[in-house]
């Protein structure tokens, strides 16, 4: 589904943040992306999400060469990738329901065509009774679940989650992890960037460890 071959990335004239990174993400796979803080986990996720271009190497996303994807094609491909940001990135002037429905709304779909789907998804992530609440009132865990719901509403083929349990207590972290495992069972590939070893030990999954800009994979 997504292939990296000898990918390197540097910001400006600085040193290489990522060096010779190569891996293949299969459909319906589940993996953790880990490593100490500042080793490039978020940068790697940004490359996967196409908000950065590599300085060298080849990235193939859904069979397309990243360097040949035009600006017009980008939104269409991006709709197949769900992202949960570390800082949630919910819009404070939209309520939970509207935040989750945003990816469908920006495609110009009529609200009547997706309303029931959004409500169902909100119930699935446990926010059925927080639909009309605005993000500033939501707790950290609720914001996280709203962000996950927003990433899932378009039924993406792959979900990228950046420290999804970074702001929640261990109990809620386990609940969120179960949610992501369930999602994976339903057919979505999942990449979780985390440095929480306790979280990784709960699931027997592939581990991609970044260290000094290089990637090591433990299947």
């Amino acid at each position: 589904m997504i292939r990296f071959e000898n990918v390197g990335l540097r910001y400006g004239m600085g040193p290489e943040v990522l060096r010779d990174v190569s891996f293949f993400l299969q459909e319906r796979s589940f993996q953790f992306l880990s490593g100490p803080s500042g080793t490039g986990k978020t940068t790697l996720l940004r490359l996967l999400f196409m908000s950065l271009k590599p300085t060298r190497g080849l990235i193939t996303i859904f069979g397309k060469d990243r360097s040949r994807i035009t600006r017009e094609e980008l939104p269409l491909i991006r709709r197949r990738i769900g992202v949960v940001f570390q800082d949630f990135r919910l819009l404070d002037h939209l309520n939970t329901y509207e935040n989750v429905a945003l990816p469908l709304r920006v495609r110009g779909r009529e609200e009547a065509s997706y309303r029931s789907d959004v409500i169902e998804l909100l119930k699935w992530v446990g926010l059925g009774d927080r639909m009309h609440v605005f993000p500033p009132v939501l707790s950290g865990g609720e914001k996280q679940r709203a962000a996950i719901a927003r990433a899932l509403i378009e039924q993406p083929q792959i979900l990228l989650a950046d420290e999804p349990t970074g702001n929640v207590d261990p109990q809620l972290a386990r609940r969120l992890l179960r949610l992501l495992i369930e999602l994976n069972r339903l057919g979505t590939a999942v990449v979780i960037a985390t440095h929480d070893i306790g979280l990784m030990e709960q699931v027997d999954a592939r581990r991609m460890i970044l260290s000094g800009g290089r990637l090591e994979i433990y299947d």
Partner: protein
Amino acid sequence: MIRSIAARDQVIRLVEWVGAMKQQGTARKARRQNPIVPADNIAGRAMVLVIAIMTFLSCLTLGAVTLVRDTAATWQTQIAREATVQIKPAEGLDMEAALADAQRIVTRYRGVQSATIVDRQATARLLEPWLGPGLDIEELPVPRLIIVTIDPAERPDFAAMRAELQQAVPSAVLDDHRTWVDRLVAMATTTVTIGIGVLALMLSATALTVIFATRGAMAGNGHVIEVLHFVGAEANFIAREFRRHFLLAGMRGAAAGGLAAVIVFVVFSWWSSHNVATPEGDQAAALFGNFSIGMSGYLGVGLVVILIAALTAATSHITVISYLRHIET
């Protein structure tokens, strides 16, 4: 009894219907989604205020330039509409016959609407400020005048008229006010040119202020653009949403400023029309006419409002596109 039961049922049905309508209303209200672009924050409100002030000043400048242009045109037309034939007294000249001859000659020319001899009483009145009342005009060698009214659209051949007058009445002098008209034209052209220069500077300052204010208001929306981009919105969609929001905000500010300027002109116009016979009113009227900026002035104000709103929308559009380019690299 039966009637009262029926009435009660009717009331219950009415209450139920009102309840259902209220519920429908609530549901409709709940379904109305919040706009994707957030409502104005402090920078947004400041932008609307800046746009209103700058539009007001621009429209005021535009109105003032229109006023000066119209007044200058009126001065020119009024002076260009008249010429004067002056007949100086000479030895053996029958003044009345000379006046009649000159009047006859002048009225023969195309473009002359009328030629009126300033009679003895009127001439005496003209000289009264200098020579005092009770003047006997017969005792003095006072030149006499013929006021010639000219069609400004078809000016007569003054050279031929002057030559013919000289031949028939050698002491006649034709003054077509050319010197005055030339001076006035030069003054009016300079005034209008300066006015247009000031207007151009004002519009440039307005455009730059509007651009900076819009960019300032847009700066607080970076996270919205970013989120929309990351949830798969196309650049055109994001730009359209912001363009629409800022077009309305710009229109709101510009319309308020334009309306305030129109009110100022209407108030001045009303003031001048209510002070027609007073010294200050006459002084203002002599300088600025009747303070009415006319249809072209109002159309100009409308155009400025539309241009400023369009400029706001265009700035937001360009800012969104450049922001998206920035986050994609």
